């Protein structure tokens, strides 16, 4: 009791105790209920024991249970590693002690009712219904055993003093319980208000961030336009005037400018995805037509490292529902990577369909016979700026954001990007998207199966790269720095 009073008047002390002995909330709840209730409980039991001329041992059990035990229980629970479990053990002992006391009063009507109701409510609020059931059993067994051992005769009536004090116990206990419940709801409401206010602040901050990014993107691009434009113009002039010595340097300026532009676009793209502000345009896509378009755009890329490029398409593929522009962006990014990391090898783009997890999926596989990745490198490639290692970035260029963006986009479209790779042998990246409709069986155009073209030998396809507008030029970022490469963003 003195501890409790001190706790109320000296928050500093209380805070110190809380910091030193953090307890489960139920421990604190039960302590606050026990202390005042059992002071009245002591008076109630005394009134019940007195007419039965109980011995000093009985009074000792009563005094320990009512006056000392609440503090001992708090002490034990607050110093144990698992305060909730300790609290439950203490409460179980409580139930046994109260059962014993009830028997020692000869099951005097009102004290037995009052103590059982209080201990039952306490057990329910702290331990739940299962614990309460076992608790009631413990109470009954303890009472029965004590009755037999002590031989106190059953006299289930109460005199006036016992009745009044029992009602006092019930009054104090229910009041404490109700007060606690009231304070708890108030704290909950306050917490909810605080949370809502925090959410509003966070949303406002997020909007401010998006505005800032959009503005920054515009402000950064405007001077870049000039840098890229003037370097291109000077390049044309240098060619016209026969100053071929300048051409390479001007191309480097242009290449660096394009690379920076790709970085800005990628960072903006990723920020929008992370902020949940990417707007997808859902449309029904004929994957085969899309595959042809992507292959046409990617073909010139393959020439650079003298790679053989093949495209395979399964005979029956359904329509998918996704954002076609974004899907092209993802596939071109994967193909650009494959082309970049493979020299005089093979790059294959393959479309097939499979049934898994209760639905049909379309799989776009981009596999190459390039440098491949070690397991350590694979663990990093889907992380922002996690290009397999820094040396790769210097040697092959790229922003290290393309794969992250590709994967996030596919996840937004209900699919994913996965990979398999063997160091030195090559890599396979698989885009997996859900098929939304059954295959259109009415199609009668010839299947675009095994459209195979060796890019190094087949230059006539180079001009296919027309009319694919990829507004966010992410796909182009990884190749934009290579002079003479196709700018996927505006191929």
């Amino acid at each position, binding site marked *: 009791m003195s501890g409790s009073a001190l706790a109320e008047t000296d928050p500093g002390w209380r805070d110190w105790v809380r910091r030193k002995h953090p307890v489960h909330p139920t421990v604190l709840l039960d302590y606050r209920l026990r202390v005042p209730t059992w002071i009245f409980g002591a008076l109630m039991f005394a009134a019940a024991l007195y007419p039965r001329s109980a011995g000093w041992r009985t009074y000792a059990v009563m005094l320990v249970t009512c006056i000392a035990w609440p503090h001992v229980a708090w002490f034990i629970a607050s110093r144990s590693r698992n305060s909730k479990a300790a609290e439950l053990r203490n409460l179980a002992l409580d139930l046994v002690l109260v059962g014993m006391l009830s028997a020692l009063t000869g099951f005097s009507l009102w004290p037995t009712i009052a103590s059982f109701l209080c201990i039952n409510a306490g057990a329910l609020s702290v331990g739940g219904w299962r614990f309460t059931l076992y608790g009631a059993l413990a109470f009954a067994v303890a009472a029965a055993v004590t009755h037999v051992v002590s031989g106190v005769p059953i006299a289930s009536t109460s005199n006036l003093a016992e009745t009044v004090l029992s009602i006092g116990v019930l009054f104090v206990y229910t009041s404490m319980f109700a007060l606690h419940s009231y304070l708890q709801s108030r704290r909950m409401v306050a917490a909810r208000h605080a949370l809502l206010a925090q959410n509003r602040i966070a949303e406002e901050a997020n909007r401010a961030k998006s505005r800032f990014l*959009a503005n920054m*993107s*515009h402000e950064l*691009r*405007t*001077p*870049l*336009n*000039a840098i*890229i*434009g*003037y370097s*291109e*113009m000077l390049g*044309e*002039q240098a060619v016209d005037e026969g100053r071929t010595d300048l051409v390479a340097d001007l191309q480097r300026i242009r290449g660096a*400018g394009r690379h920076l*532009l790709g970085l800005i*676009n990628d960072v903006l793209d990723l920020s929008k995805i992370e902020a949940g502000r990417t*707007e997808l*345009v859902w449309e029904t896509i004929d994957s085969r037509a899309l595959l042809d378009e992507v292959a046409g755009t990617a073909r010139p890329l393959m020439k650079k490292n003298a790679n053989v490029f093949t495209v395979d398409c399964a005979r029956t593929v359904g329509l998918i529902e996704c954002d076609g*522009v974004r899907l092209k962006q993802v596939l071109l990014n994967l193909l650009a990577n494959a082309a970049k990391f493979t020299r005089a090898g093979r790059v294959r783009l393959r479309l097939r369909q499979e049934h898994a997890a209760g639905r049909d999926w379309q799989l776009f596989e981009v596999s190459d016979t390039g440098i491949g990745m070690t397991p350590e490198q694979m663990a990093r490639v889907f992380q922002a700026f996690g290009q397999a290692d820094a040396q790769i970035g210097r040697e092959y260029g790229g922003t290290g954001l393309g794969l992250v963006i590709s994967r996030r986009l596919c996840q937004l479209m209900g699919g994913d990007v996965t990979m398999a790779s063997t160091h030195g042998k090559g890599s396979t990246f698989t885009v997996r998207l859900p098929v939304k409709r059954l295959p259109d069986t009415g199609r009668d155009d010839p299947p675009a199966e095994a459209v195979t073209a060796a890019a190094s030998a087949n230059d006539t396809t180079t001009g296919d790269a027309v009319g694919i*507008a990829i*507004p*966010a*030029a992410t796909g182009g970022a990884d190749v934009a720095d290579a002079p003479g490469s196709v*700018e996927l*963003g*505006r191929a």
Partner: protein
Amino acid sequence: MAHLLLVEDNELNRDMLSRRLARRGHEISFALDGGEAVEAAKRLPDLILMDMSLPVIDGWEATRRIKADPALRAIPVIALTAHAMRGDVDQAKAAGCDEFETKPVEFERLLAKIEQLLAARAK
């Protein structure tokens, strides 16, 4: 040899783009904002290159006004936007732009679009 109206508020971009177009034999006139663009359009250029983010009146509104005027409606407008947002393409089309190009422009492709629109108009 065609007369192109270049609407662009940024001095460097205006200078760079006009010099490159002039090197390809086009005659260039300028407008610095949307209001000027609508006035300059009345001198009937063969084609308008319109930046979208402009002071006073933006490119979308200027295009809408030009396309609303029966005397000017036939002049092709190519929208130039700094943002590579898809919404911008739709907005440009809704305003009545005939073509669309993202900045920094792919110069050869821009030229091809200009030639294509001029040829279509000549027919």
